[in-house]
Structures are given as structure tokens and as C-alpha cells.
């Protein structure tokens, strides 16, 4: 376990992040971060000039910072995570002007050795990208990185299978104050009138169930996840006669984190941050390969 300073990674908590997989970056160097920030800043300003609607009257400057976060990694073989932040600064008064953080993007690789192992030297492996803020800025920053480092961004979809894994894994985690239910959200969009079902279980009861399913602490098998989900499905069926397995699992929420099939995540506990990022890194790598 890497000794991470939780303060450095706290910015990830309790915010909604949109997930992307990123192919390895060619020619990227963490020695040139300030240079990249300047280039990206110029690029962003140019994109703005091209005609993105800006508030009339107030001239807003976009300030770009690119920094690295050595604390955000799984092992020493991982690359340092890179954080890109966009702030709006009113250029009316240059000194002491308020800066408002409007967009954050984080490239990281947590225990992603198997991808970086066979890469030639010029490539940097940071397969997981998290974005928070307006879609327009994500698009601009993404375009610049794609052009500059010849990489490719793709939205990270999370399948119902992976969501079930998260449900099982996160239910088993020890949490100090069990306040949040373990919630599964299902969707049946193809009916004449679409149906959404939210199935929330008291976290103590969900954990009690999982603890009897999991045979070896520290290890989870696909079979155990299947048994866990089948138990929940059959409890539901007993009451409502509806087969949840015939619907689509679209979202999982626990006290640890919540994940949506469209590739949206929210981290809620710093203790388990690394664990969730490891899982997401793996999903990103699978999507790339």
C-alpha cells in the first residue's frame, strides 16, 4: 500500500466525475507541465475566440494549471497522476481578482502495471481520466491532449456485470457510520412506458448477507458475486414477481462510492479511494485493449 497523503487526494471526494479511458500518451514528460499549461491556455483562449458564447460585458480569463500528484498511484511502477485545472478569473482587476475553479481533469493509473509493462519508453501510461465540470471544457482539454500526445479518449462504460462486482465489493467494506443504504437502480427502457426500479437495502443487512456469501476474506470470486445478486433478485421476486435479472442494472450506490453505467462515479470515502481507482483503472485498460 502506497503511503498517500489523504489531503492531496481529498479533491476527488464527494464530486461527480465522468470517466474516460485514455490510450498511452506519446512524448509526454512530467518535466514540462508548466509548458503544457501555457500551451493549453493559449489553445483554450483560441477556442473561446472561435465563438463559444461568453457572458456579454465581463471579460473572463481562463487560467490553466497542470500539476502532478505523486500521492495518487497504486505502486511505484505507476506514473504520477496529472491534474489539470481550469479557473475563471475576471480580468477587470488583475491583482486580487477572484479565481473560480470551473473544471478539473485528472489522468491517473492506479496499479495499472500490466499495461505499462510492454510499452516503449516514449509512451506514458495514464489510462484513466476523470473529468468534473462543463462538458464544453472537457471537450477542449480532450482535443488538445489528443492532438498533442496522439492519444484517444473514450467514455468509459460500466457494464451491469462490473456494477454487480462493485455492489458486492463495496457492500463488504467496513464503514464506521452506516448511514447510506446499498442501492441498486434498474431500468427497463424498452417497455411502452419505461420503468425505473430503485432497490435500496439497509447497509447492515446487505453486509450480513454478503458476509455469509463470501467464503475467503480478502478474495472475491465471480460465483460469490452471482450468488449475492441472485439472493437479492430472488428476495425481490418473492415480493413482486418481477425478474430483476431481465432489466438493466444502471447504477450502484453505497457508502463507499456510487457508480453509473454511463461511466459516472462519485467517491465517498477516502479510505477506499485507492481500491475504487484500482478497479476503474482496470476497466479503463480493458476498454483500451
Amino acid at each position, binding site marked *: 500500500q502506497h503511503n498517500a497523503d489523504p489531503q492531496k487526494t481529498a479533491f476527488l471526494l464527494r464530486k461527480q466525475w465522468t470517466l474516460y479511458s485514455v490510450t498511452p500518451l506519446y512524448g509526454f514528460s512530467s518535466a514540462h507541465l508548466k509548458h503544457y499549461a501555457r500551451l493549453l491556455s493559449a489553445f483554450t483562449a483560441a477556442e473561446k475566440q472561435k465563438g463559444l458564447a461568453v457572458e456579454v460585458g465581463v471579460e473572463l480569463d481562463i487560467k490553466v494549471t497542470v500539476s502532478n500528484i505523486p500521492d495518487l498511484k497504486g505502486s511505484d511502477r505507476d506514473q504520477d497522476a496529472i491534474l489539470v485545472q481550469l479557473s475563471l478569473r475576471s480580468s477587470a482587476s488583475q491583482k486580487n481578482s477572484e479565481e473560480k475553479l470551473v473544471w478539473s481533469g485528472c489522468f491517473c493509473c492506479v496499479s495499472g502495471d500490466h499495461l505499462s509493462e510492454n510499452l516503449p519508453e516514449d509512451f506514458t501510461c495514464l489510462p484513466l481520466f476523470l473529468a468534473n465540470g462543463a462538458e464544453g471544457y472537457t471537450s477542449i482539454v480532450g482535443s488538445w491532449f489528443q492532438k498533442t500526445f496522439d492519444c484517444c479518449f473514450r467514455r468509459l462504460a460500466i457494464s451491469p456485470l462490473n456494477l454487480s462486482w462493485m455492489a458486492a465489493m463495496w457492500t463488504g467494506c467496513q464503514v464506521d457510520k452506516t448511514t447510506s443504504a446499498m442501492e441498486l437502480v434498474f431500468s427497463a427502457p424498452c417497455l411502452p*412506458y*419505461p*420503468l425505473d426500479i430503485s432497490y435500496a437495502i439497509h447497509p447492515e443487512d446487505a453486509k450480513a448477507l454478503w458476509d455469509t456469501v463470501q467464503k475467503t476474506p480478502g478474495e472475491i470470486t465471480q460465483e460469490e458475486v452471482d*450468488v449475492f445478486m441472485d*439472493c437479492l433478485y*430472488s*428476495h425481490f421476486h418473492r*415480493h*413482486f414477481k418481477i*425478474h430483476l435479472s431481465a432489466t438493466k442494472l444502471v447504477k450502484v450506490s453505497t457508502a463507499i462510492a456510487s457508480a453509473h453505467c454511463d461511466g459516472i462515479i462519485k467517491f465517498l470515502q477516502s479510505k477506499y479511494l485507492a481500491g475504487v481507482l484500482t478497479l476503474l483503472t482496470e476497466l479503463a485498460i480493458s476498454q483500451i485493449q
Partner: protein
Amino acid sequence: MDETVAEYIRRTVLKIPRDEIKMILQKWGFLSEAQLETINFHQIKDNISQDVVQLCEENSADIKQAAVLDIIYNNIYPNKRIWSVYQMNKTGEETEFFDLTDFKKKFKRLLRSALKNVTINFREYEDNAIWIRIAWGTPYTKPNQYKTSYVVYHSQTPYVFISASVLRSNLPLLCQALVVASNYQDIREMELRSHSLNSLKDIVFKRYSQNFQTYCPRPLTERNVAPETVDLRIIQENRNEKERIQRLNREVFGDGPQPKIEFAQYKLETMFKSDPKMDVLDKKEPFRCLVKFSSPHLLESLKSLAPAGMADAPLSPLLTCIPQKARNYFKIREKKGFLPGSFVSP
């Protein structure tokens, strides 16, 4: 005309879809036909509403007229709000003659004795519905016309439909006023909520086509079905099964359109039961869950589940009982004793 009244009228008109504005203003009747003729209803809504306010200024509109316009708007577009259903009861069988004037007087008196700052308006409709609009203030502030509660009371029935809005603290007072004014003894909130006021009425007034529990002797196979020109090479597998599902669905949901509700919520406090072979949880305490169903038209959606293969037919009575029980919020506990696996809903 008061600034706040002008602004309120302007905002109310802006809520109305442009094509409906003239009709609603006519229903309102506060502006004359001649005045309405002077408005260009093809311009943008901002300008239409300004013109309306101008004319209201000429007629010296006050808050009472503005409130009536608001009632009319909410009566035509009730689905913008969430409605809860309340039932009043009293001992004694005689149906007393309902005196509208007396009702209004008592209602206003009770509310005003507790709260000086409150705007109360009534409007009666042909279907015996009395609409009441209440704008709430505090002992120190004027009524907030944007934080209003609505009550729809059908005087021939013990049912009241309330759209309370944010200020739920005024609800007990409102309920008390209703009970006193209508000469009932008490009032209770039913576990039934929806955006669709008409569907709530359908459910409590039993205006939907109910399924009858009698055995239905296979009408599907006996009916004369017009011969379809189908390709004889295509065989319908499981035809019997499909027909069985359709029949059971009809028995349970009835033939007619379902009342429109958007959600149902179940708080489950039943035991977790599993196959003993699976060697999983075997606790003596309830497995606590909260299940929420939502859909633009929930009952029709549930009805389509079995034919789509996503549910067994017949669907669970926990779902199909919603219109009969007139509720969409449930607390389910295990039924002790004779029938294991059956549920009780208090």
C-alpha cells in the same frame, strides 16, 4: 395597481402556453372582450404578458382577481403539482345538506383566527369540486403569493386533494379548517400521491374499470378473430402461454385504461428466505429494504411486464392492489402464522 400584483399577474401569464393564453383570459373574465381584442396573441409571451398587465392596470386589478387567475391556471394544469389525498370521517350516517356559504365562512374564520396574514380564494366548478387557494404569510409578513397551497374538495364525498407546497408546517392548520368547515370529525392522510389529480380522483371515486375477481371463461379463444394474412411458415411458439399471460393480466388489471400515477414505494420489513442449500443468510430479523418504482405511467408499465417476459403472470398483488387500496405508499411486514410467504400491509 399594486406592484406585486402586477408582477404576479405577469408571471402567471408567462406560465401559460402561448396558444392557450386567450382562452384562459376569457375564462377569467376580468378583461372585457374589447380589451382582449387589443392584444396581439402572436407576439412573444413576454410582450403578451406586458400587455395583459397594462390592461389589468386600467381595470385596477387587486390580489383577489390575480388569485382567481392563478386558480384557473392550476385547474387547467394540475399535473404541475404533486397531490396528496386525505379522507375525512365522522360518525353518524345522515348526509347533511352541504351549505357552501357556511363552509367558506367557517373555513376562512378558522384560518384567519390562527393566521392574520393569509389570502384565501374559492372557485366552484361544475363537477361539484370546490377549489381553494391559500397563500401563506406569517404574523409579521404578508402572504407569499408564490408559496401557495391548493385544496380540491368534492363536497359529496369525504375526500380532499391537497397540494401543499413547501410550507408543510401549515398543513395541520389547513386540515383542521377543512374538518371544521365541512362538519366532519377528523381527517387522515391516505398513502396516495401523484401528479395526476384526475387519476387520483379515478382511484378514490372508483372511476376506473375495475377487475372483477370472478372466473373469466377463456373469452380469448372463443372470440371471432378476423383471420390475419400471415405467412403460414411462421409459427407462434408458446401461443398458449402468451394467451394465458394475457388472460391473467386482464383478470388482474381489468380491461380499461389504468389510472395514471408516477411512483409507488414499498418499505419492506420481511424476512430474507433462501434455499437452505445455498448456505446464506439465515437471520431471525427482517431484511430491511426500500423499493421505489417510477414511470411516466406506472400502472400501464407494470401491466406490460408479464407480456414482455420480465415478470410472472399474475403480477404480485402488492402492485396490482394499488387502485383498489387507493394507496401507493406501503409498509410490508411478514404475516405470522398460517400462510408463510404472504404479506401484510398495515
